[in-house]
């Protein structure tokens, strides 16, 4: 774990301790379970985003994809009465397709990631709204899918299964990002795509794969979100989720210029964001300030991180200088 990650972890623990002192109910198992459920949902999303950010790209359509795929998933199983495993596979495939499409537009047709995914943001939500004729996709009363519900919204030994899913995914993705050749290429491309190309790497394919991973993870979390809310108004479902995901990555030490960041960082970023949301509600802070608190903490977080770096560099210099002067005097 890097120093950056450690700092974030400490921040999370300190904030948690303060909240627990003010309102001890913060530590109730039920509250921890609720919060870790949401950490699971947003964490999966954020890991996907992280893979794209590493390459120096960005995926702004995440929220709209959550809305579109969630709508379709509920529609498939509730209205069209598809078997849920089939629907599940279909949705994941759709997520992969969306990612592939974005990757293709970005790597083959050389469009900017911001532009491609901004258009995605606008288009997918529009399609979802059109699909439901601006209505709501939801389950009928009493419609139940025991296994699916257990897997998505259930708990094992008191721990939400969504959180367990996140942990599994995080472990796998940690290996992929930090230990595999593919992960190494991602970092390299994020720093210097030209050079990677000169080294004979098929950068296009690697970047495309990053978008596909993001698409798949987004689709997975879309299913989780759908099973969490059990009803989706495409006009508002998942709005701003891309910001949550990006914020988690940035808090976790990712640079939007690419080539920097760790998987643990993005996880901790997600945890901090969800802790903040929980805190606002638990401490009775007006919810209008919810986003403001989030924004403030992110800003302070990156500021401290940045200034800390500057401070350390300066201290090192000063020390060296002092040593030098002392040495010169001693001579």
């Amino acid at each position, binding site marked *: 774990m890097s120093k950056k990650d450690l700092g974030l972890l400490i921040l999370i623990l300190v904030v948690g301790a303060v909240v627990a002192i003010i309102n001890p109910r913060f530590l109730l198992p039920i509250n921890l379970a609720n919060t870790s459920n949401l950490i699971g949902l947003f964490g999966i999303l954020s890991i996907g985003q992280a893979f794209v950010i590493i390459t120096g790209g960005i995926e702004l359509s995440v929220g709209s994809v959550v809305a579109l795929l969630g709508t379709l998933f509920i529609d498939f199983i509730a209205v069209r009465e598809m078997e849920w495993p089939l629907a599940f596979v279909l949705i994941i495939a759709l997520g992969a397709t969306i990612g592939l499409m974005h990757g293709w537009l970005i790597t083959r047709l050389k469009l900017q990631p911001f532009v491609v995914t901004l258009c995605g943001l606008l288009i997918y939500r529009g399609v979802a709204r059109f699909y439901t004729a601006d209505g709501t996709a939801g389950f009928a009363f009493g419609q139940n899918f025991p296994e699916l519900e257990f897997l998505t919204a259930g708990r094992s030994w008191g721990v939400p299964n969504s959180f367990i899913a996140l942990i599994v995914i995080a472990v796998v993705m940690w290996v992929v990002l930090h*230990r595999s*050749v593919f992960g190494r290429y991602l970092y*390299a491309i994020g720093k210097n795509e030209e050079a990677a190309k000169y080294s004979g790497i098929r950068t296009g394919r690697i970047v495309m794969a990053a978008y596909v991973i993001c698409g798949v993870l987004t689709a997975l979390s879309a299913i989780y979100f759908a099973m969490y809310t059990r009803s989706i108004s495409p006009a508002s479902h998942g709005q701003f989720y891309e910001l949550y995901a990006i914020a988690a990555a940035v808090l976790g030490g990712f640079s939007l210029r690419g080539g920097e960041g760790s998987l643990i960082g993005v996880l901790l970023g997600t945890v901090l964001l969800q802790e903040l949301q929980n805190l606002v509600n638990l401490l009775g802070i007006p919810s209008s300030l919810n986003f403001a608190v989030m924004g403030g903490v992110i800003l302070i977080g990156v500021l401290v991180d940045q200034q800390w770096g500057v401070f350390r560099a300066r201290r090192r210099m000063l020390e060296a*200088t002092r040593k030098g002067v002392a040495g010169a005097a001693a001579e």
Partner: protein
Amino acid sequence: MNYSDPSIVASTDAPFLSLDGVRKTYPGVVALDGFSMDVRPGEVIGLVGENGAGKSTLMKILGGVTRPDTGTITVDGVTHDGLTVEASIGSGIAFVHQELNLFENLDVAANIFFGREPLRAGPLKLVDRARLRAQAAPLLKRVGANFSADTPVSALSLAQQQMVEIAKALSIEARLVILDEPTSSLPIAETDKLLGVIKALKADGISVIFISHRLHEVERVADRVVVLRDGMLAGTLPKSAINHDQMVKLMIGRMLKEREKAAESARPPGSVALSVKAIRTAAYPDRPVDLDVRHGEILGLAGLVGSGRTELARVLFGINRSFGGSFQLDGKDLVLGSAADAVANGIFLVPEDRKLTGILLDLSIAQNISLPNLPAHSRRSLVSASAEAATAEKQKTDLGIRAPSVQTRTGTLSGGNQQKVVLAKWLAMKPKVMILDEPTRGIDIGAKAEIYGLMRALADAGVAVLMISSDMEEVIGVSDRIAVMHEGQISGILDKDRFSQENVLLLAVGKQPK
């Protein structure tokens, strides 16, 4: 095929690589024009030519980075219309690019084996990190690196990065190694090591194409010299005929007396222009630097890789902060908060990394030249395009910048011509102190002589010139005095009568000359 050198035909070895009628055009320029050559196993070819002659273009074609418009490339008897990067690497061609291509966020070992990482068993393609480092270490030793395999590349100086590039090329089981100006920022000791490496490669039967503007290096290692002029083959020289004057003649079509051009100072040096007192830099915060540069002199600043010369130049130019110490310009105290302050005081810098800091590749020649002095090219804050063009035209003729027009994007110029643009932008203003960091890096011999002439003219006009250079001949041939840096400190200053390679080298490694 038309070989101008009969010895090739006589050879019994089949060529490993041959190029036939290769032509490459860019909008407005013909970079290569029906060029043919071949390379036999274990042969070291020196490739020389003026800036913009097409050397890098040729190598990019071999590296698979660009495709020729017409012509064929035959590798190992298989004929291609053009190579891809994969095909090039696959057929055993390793490549050190003229512009560095390393990943700052990875360590040295990862960079060396990038794209060819040793893997652990299993389908996951996990990197075997221990093996990676173990394999990197001997390569680093071979190129004479003084840093370890797990150093992050972001912590290396330019020259050290160049060593990593070379180690990378060595790591490929290559049959042909192409080195595009690998020594351009290497000082003499490291250069010697590299030349040794080339000889070792040759002994293993590996072919080498060695591109350099330092003709004496070419003289030392090449078995055959291929000279390019204006994209065409100007001629080849067999081993016996390789000498400095012959190469120059083929390159520029006439004889040139390079060293004489960098004329002696016309007048004795004047008062101290820039005085540096106990300045400390970020690279060596515990080492104060004292240095005086006088009006009308060229002060050469020599030193080994990473001795802190570039860092000092940045501090003098206000880009980086100094830790303690003071500057005086013409006896007056000077505070440099930014490069803008330095420029306002007539202190200019020609940086060593021109692609990143020297020029804006996307702007035209005229726009680059006027950039530091835009207010003088404007009326009521509005830019006057005609004033810009006039200034640029003058500089283009004065410096002999080779380009279709002053409106040409500088990104399309060859390295040497880009360097001239960097010089031009400062010459168009009135310098008091001119700092040049590796001013002739990647510059051809003709242009080099011109730049030496320019430097001398500046000095004669009373400008204080501080020239940082790793090229020993250049330092000795051009300077009026030589200051040598060793690990962040000035280890000594040599006056003209004590100029010798040996003295400079001794100071550079921290010893005192006799």
